[in-house]
């Protein structure tokens, strides 16, 4: 047989391996020729690579290989696959293998697709009708066993239980081969069961040839007898005989070691026994020591008090216990640094009856205290009278120890102890105890001092509170007592001025006007003084809301125009902002008060007819500046600072000539500073003055107001999800009008014709918001409100008054959110909704477009619904804005821009987590390709084509 060529072992089935005589472990690759879907089986290691390729080429074109079957699990048998992949170069090349092999395939970076064959009854069906059936068994090699069926010859490949011999490998098996095969397997098979399981599976197959991966090819005439013979093999794990002796030796060595260890153990046990005895001795001593420590700890725990006398009594007893002394006295210093006895202790209580231990003036105790030194007195002779009655005999006290108590240079006291024996002289515990004692004493002394201080502080605090209360009471009383007579002055002068009987002379009327005006001035003064004292006491509170300052200023001007027109003084408004609505967070009342004050000052100080006052609003950097400019008398330079002080007008005579309380500017400046704003003045004598209020746009409110802001926001959030609105009004026209305005915004609308009806419907329908008229038959709005607030489940429903009442305070006291006064406009309704319910999710918008006109246009469309708008003329600017911390809720993005196009912008910000909640809307004139559209829709980006219904689309996308 010529092994240099591919050998056809059955029809269209070729052996394409390298033949090495007597090497049974080489791999045996086969090729099944099957047109364009030929199959290469077990192509083998890199050693065989060239041979395999050459032999395959003899039979078919390499490109005709569609399947490569890998069944073995040796690493080097997958190594040639990447090379084969390359030479075959076919996109639909498929590797068929079992799961253990897939790991290797991945290791070699095989790129072809593959599927695993471990599942039962798996088949590979080629489109030419050839079927490969995979027979899997738990035996190590057999998961890869597979069979070809018609129209090819029936061959079992990779049937490794029939191969793998060490010797006498022949290409085709002969009779002799099988005896060796049987012997081999009886030694290597893991178990008879598994082996027979595999054999039975194979027995059922109708096959002509077995082509094992290793071993000789077996023809049909041998197959069934072989299987029958193999079934009876005795199987078992094979251990080579040559290892037997080694094992026996090893066991012997281990047993020797064990014996040695056992002897060593006995030796150790003996040692332990010897040691234990001496340990028990030591233990006894340790236990005694432990008891002492326990006592000592108990003593220390008893020092945890702030009562000095208690500490003194306890400690003198402790010291006697610790030192085995018999008598002790505790001296404590007082403020004058003289010592007095605080506690005495003796085992013989009669000893103190003889008054031996009285207060010691001077003497050794005083010396120990002053010099911070321990004194001993030893061996007092028997003549000494100090003795204790032991019950057996009278024992003389022979040793005395005097210990100063000092905490960090602070002398606290002295302890003196006396004893019959010399145990008091040296005691290892005493030093530690004294340390703890002085600390405890110091704590107690400090505690008393702090206690005293705290009482004093409380007293001061109470007095301050009382003073404050008295001041408030005084102000309230003063206000009341001044208002009462003013009521008559203003009231009667007002009534008389009406000249109902027509009998008053012009001069008398003018005098009455003066009385009335001065009465009103006095009232202003009272109000101003109260305001000022409130501000100075820090008790003025801010109520921050979102305010459209442009319309607020317009309202003020409307209100004040008659006042100026009275004397033909001209009052004009100049809006230099490029917007007609501008929202700022501030306290509307205080803002109004400041502007009114500035304007009425200006009116006061300009001449009739020629007088001109203009109110100018403009943006300067990050401030909004509101200037009140007049052509009045002006203020001298050196007086510019003083005008903001209380009761300081530029000229003392101005009060007489121009009136006013002299408090207006002081109050205005104080209020401005509460708003974090500033008022500045420029002036030229004879030409006029300009007062400018600058409101910061960023961080408008002070930090301490932040909590308040949070509250406002939270309240707004609570009522954000408005779905349905109940309109309560007895006037059908009003109901219809409101319904028309509100249903436009997409709310569900219910209506009720009076309070009773309204209460019924509120309870039944549970609307998210109620609008309420006041003047209604049966049950009016106020009654409705108090009943609603007492109804379970609906008490918290927000209510907006829409009526003839403009009393916000009363509305709030009765529990309404706000009020709108009839007749109302659509704008009024919108403003209230913007204030409490507006689509608050969109606050910051970014418009990115290189055409300024488009930016302006979009700004115009969205400015009512968005708090803050920033513009960028290309993608790069937009990115730098975002990088600087401007995180928009919505981005309007042009696509065709210089520097960085819209698509580039999208690409660069794709992974930016800051923009994950940002809505992006492309506004472009570009005709989008299918690819563009897909890219945009993938990121859920909406597209608006420039020119086509731009306004309505932009507004629509802003909402939804």
């Amino acid at each position, binding site marked *: 047989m010529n092994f240099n060529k591919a050998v056809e072992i059955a029809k269209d089935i070729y052996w394409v391996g390298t033949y090495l005589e007597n090497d049974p472990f080489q791999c045996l690759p086969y090729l099944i020729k099957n047109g364009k879907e030929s199959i290469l089986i077990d192509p083998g290691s890199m050693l065989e690579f060239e041979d395999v390729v050459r032999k395959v080429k003899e039979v078919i074109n390499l490109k005709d290989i569609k399947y490569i079957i890998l069944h073995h699990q040796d690493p080097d048998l997958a190594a040639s696959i990447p090379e084969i992949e390359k030479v075959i170069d076919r996109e639909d090349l498929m590797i068929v293998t079992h799961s253990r092999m897939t790991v290797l395939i991945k290791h070699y970076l095989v790129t072809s697709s593959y599927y695993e064959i471990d599942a039962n009854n798996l088949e590979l069906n080629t489109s030419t009708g050839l079927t490969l059936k995979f027979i899997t068994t738990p035996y190590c090699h057999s998961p890869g066993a597979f069979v070809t069926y018609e129209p090819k010859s029936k061959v079992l490949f990779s049937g490794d239980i029939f191969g793998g011999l060490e010797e006498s490998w022949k290409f085709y098996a002969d009779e002799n081969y099988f005896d060796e095969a049987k012997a081999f397997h009886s030694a290597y098979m893991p178990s008879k069961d598994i082996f027979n399981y595999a054999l039975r599976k194979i027995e059922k197959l109708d096959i002509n040839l077995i082509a094992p991966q290793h071993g000789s090819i077996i023809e049909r005439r041998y197959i069934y007898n072989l299987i029958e013979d193999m079934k009876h093999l005795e199987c078992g794990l094979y251990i080579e005989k040559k290892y037997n002796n080694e094992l026996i030796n090893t066991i012997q060595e281990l047993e020797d070691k064990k014996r040695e260890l056992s002897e060593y153990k006995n030796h150790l046990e003996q040692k332990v026994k010897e040691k234990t005895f001496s340990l028990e001795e030591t233990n006894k001593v340790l236990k005694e020591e432990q008891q002492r420590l326990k006592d000592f700890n108990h003593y220390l725990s008893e020092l945890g008090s702030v009562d000095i006398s208690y500490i003194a009594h306890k400690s003198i007893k402790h010291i006697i216990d610790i030192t085995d002394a018999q008598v002790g006295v505790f001296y404590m210093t007082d403020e004058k640094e003289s010592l007095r006895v605080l506690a005495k202790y003796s085992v013989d209580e009669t000893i103190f009856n003889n008054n031996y231990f009285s207060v010691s003036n001077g003497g050794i105790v005083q010396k120990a205290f002053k010099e911070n030194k321990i004194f001993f007195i030893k061996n007092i002779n028997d003549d000494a009278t100090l003795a204790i009655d032991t019950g057996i005999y009278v024992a003389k006290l022979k040793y005395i120890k005097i210990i100063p108590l000092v905490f960090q240079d602070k002398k606290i006291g002295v302890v003196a102890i006396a004893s019959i024996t010399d145990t008091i002289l040296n005691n290892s515990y005493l030093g530690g105890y004294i340390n703890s004692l002085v600390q405890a004493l110091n704590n107690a002394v400090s505690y008393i001092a702090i206690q005293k201080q705290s009482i004093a502080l409380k007293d001061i605090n109470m007095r301050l509170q009382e003073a404050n209360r008295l001041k408030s009471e005084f102000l309230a009383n003063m*206000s009341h007592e001044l208002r009462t007579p003013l009521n008559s002055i203003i009231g009667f002068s007002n*009534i008389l001025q009406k000249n109902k009987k027509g009998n008053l002379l012009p001069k008398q009327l003018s005098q009455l006007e003066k009385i009335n005006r001065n009465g009103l001035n006095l009232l202003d003064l009272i109000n101003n003084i109260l305001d000022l004292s409130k501000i100075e006491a820090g008790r003025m509170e801010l109520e921050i809301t979102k305010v459209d300052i442009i319309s607020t200023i317009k309202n003020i001007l409307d209100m004040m125009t008659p006042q100026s027109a009275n004397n033909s003084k001209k009052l004009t408004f100049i809006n230099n902002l490029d917007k007609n609505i501008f929202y700022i967070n501030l306290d509307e009342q205080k803002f109004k008060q400041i502007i009114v004050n500035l304007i009425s000052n200006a009116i006061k100080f300009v001449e009739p007819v020629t007088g001109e006052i203009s109110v100018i609003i403009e943006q300067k950097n990050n401030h909004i500046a509101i200037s009140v400019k007049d052509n009045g008398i002006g203020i001298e330079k050196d007086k510019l600072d003083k005008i903001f002080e209380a009761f300081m007008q530029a000229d003392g005579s101005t009060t007489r000539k121009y009136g006013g309380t002299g408090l207006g500017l002081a109050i205005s400046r104080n209020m401005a500073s509460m708003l974090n704003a500033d008022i500045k003045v420029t002036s030229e004598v004879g030409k006029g003055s300009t007062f400018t209020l600058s409101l910061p746009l960023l961080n408008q409110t002070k930090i301490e107001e932040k909590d308040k802001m949070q509250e406002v926001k939270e309240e707004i959030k609570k009522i954000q999800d408005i779905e349905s609105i109940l309109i309560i009004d007895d006037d059908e026209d009003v109901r219809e009008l409101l319904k028309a305005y509100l249903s436009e915004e997409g709310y569900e609308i219910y209506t009720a014709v009076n309070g009773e009806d309204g209460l019924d419907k509120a309870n039944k329908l549970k609307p998210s918001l109620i609008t309420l008229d006041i003047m209604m038959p049966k049950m009016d709005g106020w009654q409705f409100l108090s009943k609603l607030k007492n109804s379970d489940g609906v008490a918290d429903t927000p209510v907006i008054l829409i009526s003839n009442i403009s009393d916000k305070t009363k509305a709030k006291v009765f529990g309404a959110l706000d009020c709108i006064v009839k007749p109302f406009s659509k704008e009024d309704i919108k403003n209230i909704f913007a204030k409490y319910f507006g689509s608050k999710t969109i606050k910051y918008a970014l418009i990115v477009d290189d055409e300024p006109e488009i930016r302006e246009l979009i700004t115009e469309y969205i400015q009512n619904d968005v708090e803050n708008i920033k513009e960028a003329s290309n993608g790069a600017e937009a990115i730098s804005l975002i990088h600087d911390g401007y995180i928009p809720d919505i981005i309007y993005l042009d696509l065709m821009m210089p520097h960085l196009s819209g698509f580039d912008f999208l690409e660069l910000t794709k992974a930016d987590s800051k923009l994950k909640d940002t809505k992006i809307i492309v506004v472009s004139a570009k005709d989008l390709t299918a690819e563009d559209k897909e890219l945009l829709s993938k990121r859920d980006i909406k597209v608006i084509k420039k020119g086509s219904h731009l306004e309505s689309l932009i507004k629509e996308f802003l909402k939804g």
Partner: protein
Amino acid sequence: MEKILVIEDNEDNLAVVESYLEDDYHIVSSDNGEDGIEMAKKEQPGVILLDISLPNMDGVEVLKCLKEDEECKNIPVVALTAHAMVGDKEKFLQKGFDEYISKPIVDDEELMQKIETLLRLKK
């Protein structure tokens, strides 16, 4: 002509209110709370204007009696007072007054308007 009861101890201020209202309403008055309550029961006025700082029984106590009385509880009561510090208005409305007008009365039209509204509401 609707009847208005004014309870006010300060003679001058009573005269001011009377002067403002006498053309349009029938005014009855009392200079203390106790008589005022009796008068309210007897006269059944359309609106009561009630001062707060009154001798013996102050305005808030008077209001309480009026609102607890079956015959008087539906008569709207206005606090007409020189207690006009910040928060006073809220305080009195919370105590159950139907309206609040501070002294000195600066705008007599507002006074009239408030009375008219209360009278209309009562109907």
